[in-house]
Structure formats: C-alpha cells, structure tokens
C-alpha cells in the first residue's frame, strides 16, 4: 500500500461543443514523476467545485465516453486511448504511470456528440512511498458542517490537546454518503494535499464504495491543524461526518 506524500488537484473546465482538452501547463507537478492519476466524479448533480465553489463537478455517468492519451517528457505515448473508467477513484488498482508527463501533449477527450457541462476533477499522486506498517493509534472526531460550510481542523482537535495525532499516518472519513473535500497542510510545507474528496478516505463499511483494506495512508505527515480544512460542497444540505486520524 502506498503512503501518500502529495496529491494535487487539476480542475479542467468543460466548454460546450469542445470535445478535446489538454492538461493545464501551470500545475505544481509539471516536472514531477506522477505515480497515478485519479478521476473524481460527483455522485449526483449539485456538487460545486472545491476550487471556485461554483462550477458543477462532472457527475457519475458523464465520463463513460472519456478517454486519455498521456505522453511522457520523452514524447512517448504511455497511455493510448485509456478509458477514464480505469482512472476512476473507485478503482482500487488504477494504472501506475511512473512518468513525468508532457502536459502540452497529454490530453483527454470525449467521444460522441454530447459533451457534459461543468468541470473534471483530476488528482495527480506523486512522491508516494511504500507504507511501512499499519498505524496503531486513532482519534475520531464527529462534527457538523452547514450547507456550503467549511471548518478548519483546529476546532475539531482542540479538546484533545494532550493526544493530538501527529505525525498523521492515515485518515478515514465517514461522510454518510455525502462527499466532502479536505485540504491538508503540513507544518513544513513540503506536502501537497489539495481538495481531496472524502470518497478517497471512506472506511470499509460504506456500502456504495469499494471495500478498502486500510485507512487512506499518509507518509507521516505533520499536519498543520491551523491551516487544514474540510469543506461541504453542497449548498443545499448539511453534513455530519466523522474523521478518524491514525497516528
């Protein structure tokens, strides 16, 4: 199992009538060896992008005819006509890329006359390492988020001052089927975890997601609780999640 060090979000906004999109050039992982790409799709309509809070996220079913052509920095095609289904976050074993991607050449494209509206959320994992054993301790916090609301981690863990989880080695989020977005910052500012969907971190007992063997693992991240946050992307419903930190 991989202990994650960096997962960065790329948002690609879809335009009516345009089938083909190239990767944006100004990503933080442009020259980094990408381990995996994960595609996140909203469970239904009404989810806003965690980046701007407005653009609707492409829902399940909208990426059935989406394909990727990925090139590495040597201009070699590493993935030709890869179905987006294999990059879906629910795939327990997505393709391992292990390449520095050529962003000007890599593209994604829809096949067919109908191009959905909204945006695509693509997550690039890089710098991960093999996890060295399972964490032994855990701290769970339950809280509520109003519609469209956001909270930092500090208020959640303040009452546990004497047993604050650090370094954090894993996270699970029991979101009750309503996805949230987490942004993690670390004390040394060396890790990147931007707008991660809680669907990546659901515990095993969730019925609508594939079973996961263990928590979403982090590579001993010294989480900055003052600057990390969790956000409810739905403007019409509140959320009552439980986050478990493993350390």
């Amino acid at each position: 199992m991989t202990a994650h060090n960096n997962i960065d979000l790329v948002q690609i906004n879809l335009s009516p009538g345009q089938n083909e999109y190239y990767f944006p050039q100004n990503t933080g992982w442009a020259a980094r060896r990408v381990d995996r790409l994960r595609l996140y799709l909203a469970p239904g309509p009404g989810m806003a992008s965690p980046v701007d809070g407005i653009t609707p996220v492409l829902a399940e079913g909208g990426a059935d005819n989406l394909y990727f052509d990925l090139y590495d920095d040597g201009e070699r095609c590493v993935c030709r006509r890869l179905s987006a289904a294999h990059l879906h976050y629910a795939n327990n074993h997505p393709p391992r890329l292990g390449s520095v991607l050529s962003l000007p050449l890599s593209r994604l494209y829809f096949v067919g006359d109908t191009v959905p509206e909204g945006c695509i959320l693509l997550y690039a994992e890089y710098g991960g390492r093999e996890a060295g054993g399972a964490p032994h301790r855990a701290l769970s916090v339950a809280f509520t988020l109003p519609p469209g609301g956001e909270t930092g981690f500090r208020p959640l863990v303040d009452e546990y001052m004497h047993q604050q989880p650090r370094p954090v080695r894993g996270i699970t989020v029991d979101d009750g089927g309503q996805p949230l977005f987490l942004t993690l910052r670390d004390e040394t500012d060396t890790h990147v975890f931007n707008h991660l969907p809680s669907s990546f971190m659901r515990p095993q007992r969730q019925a609508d997601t594939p079973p996961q063997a263990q928590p979403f693992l982090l590579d001993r991240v010294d989480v900055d609780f003052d600057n990390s946050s969790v956000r409810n992307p739905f403007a019409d419903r509140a959320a009552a999640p439980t986050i478990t930190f493993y350390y």
Partner: protein
Amino acid sequence: MNKKLSGAKLLLVPIAAMGPNKFPYVEDLKGRVIKYIDFYPCRWLPGTADEGLATPADLYVTLADQVGNAYFLHGLPLERLDYASTCGLRQPVGQPVSLQNSFVDCRNEQAVGTTAAFVVWYDLPQFSARNRTDDLLVDSVTVPLVSEVRHNPLPDEERMARKRFRHLWLAAPSLTPDYRAALAPDQLKNCYITLRKGAYNVLDNVPLWLFYQLRMMDKMELANIVFDFQGSYITIGGAGTLPGVRTDYIGKSVFFNLAYER
C-alpha cells in the same frame, strides 16, 4: 502462491442429475498446477446453445488432488468461486487437480439440465514470464463483432506484436474512441475472449467480464503473457441462439485496454 495468471481454460460441466456431476477430463490440464477456479454464472455459453447455470444456490464443488485422489477441497459452496460476488478474493487451489475425480454436487432441482461454466486458471510457463520492469505502456483494442456463431478476430495491431502483457482492463463505454457503438455491460457478460499463441490457446474462452475489475479488492494480473493478435478472437455466447444477437451485438464493438512491458 504467485497470484499472477498465465493460462486459462473454460470448462463446461453439465448438471445432468442431482448429486455429483463430474468435471470433464482435459488433457491440456493434466499435471498442470491449477491456481484458481472461477465459477461464471451466465445463461449464454460459447459454442453451445445449452442453458448455462446462472444461480449458484445449493451447489457445491469438491476437488480431488492428483496423488491418491484425496479431496483437498470438499463441499465448497459455488458462490465462493464466483469472482464478482467475492470482490475478486479468489479461493486459491495451488496444486494439480484430478478433474475427472472432481465434481459439482447438485442439491438444487432447478439447476438440473443446465451447464455450469468454470474458468480454470493454471500455470503456463511456456507463454509467460517474470516481470522485467515496472514500466508499463497502455494501449487499446477495439474488436468489431461480425459473427454471432463464428469467431470475431482481434485486429492485427503491429505496434503491440511480440509484447508481454500484464493487464487486460475492460471498461463499458457506450462509444469506443473510434466512434463505434460498444456493448453494454449486460451484453459484455455474454462474450468470451480467446488469446492464442501459435496453435495454443493461452486464454481459452475466458469470459470477458472477468476483466471488468473496477471495484474488485484483489487485482487480476497476468504473468506477462504473450499471444498473437492474428488468431485471437472474441466469441458471443449462445452459438447464434441468443435473442436479438444480430440486431444488438453484430455491428457493435468490444473495447478494452492492454498494459504491457515497455
């Protein structure tokens, strides 16, 4: 046991009566180490109009080993061998099996008269190899369906000739990248793939749906198998008797991705 898969063969076991129904003897599997056996619940089977066993309730599998014919796996419920319902967590076999002394014990009258389909995964070192590298390239194959009775050949993809394949990933788009209509998931469940190297079927009539692994806990990895695109094919189950096959299957395509060593 090394979980990588190299050879596979589809075996059809007629459930002729209540009680034990023996597996057929297969010369190619004699002495081979069997890794896994999958039960595939499907009404439409390749090359035959016989009704396939679709529900595994109240059927049990017993496997005999080659030495002394002792039953090392006795009375295992058939559901335990269904790859999809176990989320990919297969029951390992890991030894040669005396197929002619193994049987399916039928305790369900509804199942009599049907044919149970099993995929036997076995060691085939002649057409597989160890990993040389972790660098894989991913490509795609689109197979147009032209016949409901005969073989539907794979396209001759020169750029993938002589490659060592580690994954076959099946998705279920409605359109392939070259704008052909693709089969729906329920239709893909009635298709079978044969990958051939020379005169030998490396994967022989393996249900295509077994390669749909998006929500499986345990991944299925091929042992860098080699095969020829020329001579490999896809078969539609039912031997032409599947209702609506000419209108709903012929003219459409099957799409999948292949990952191979760089």
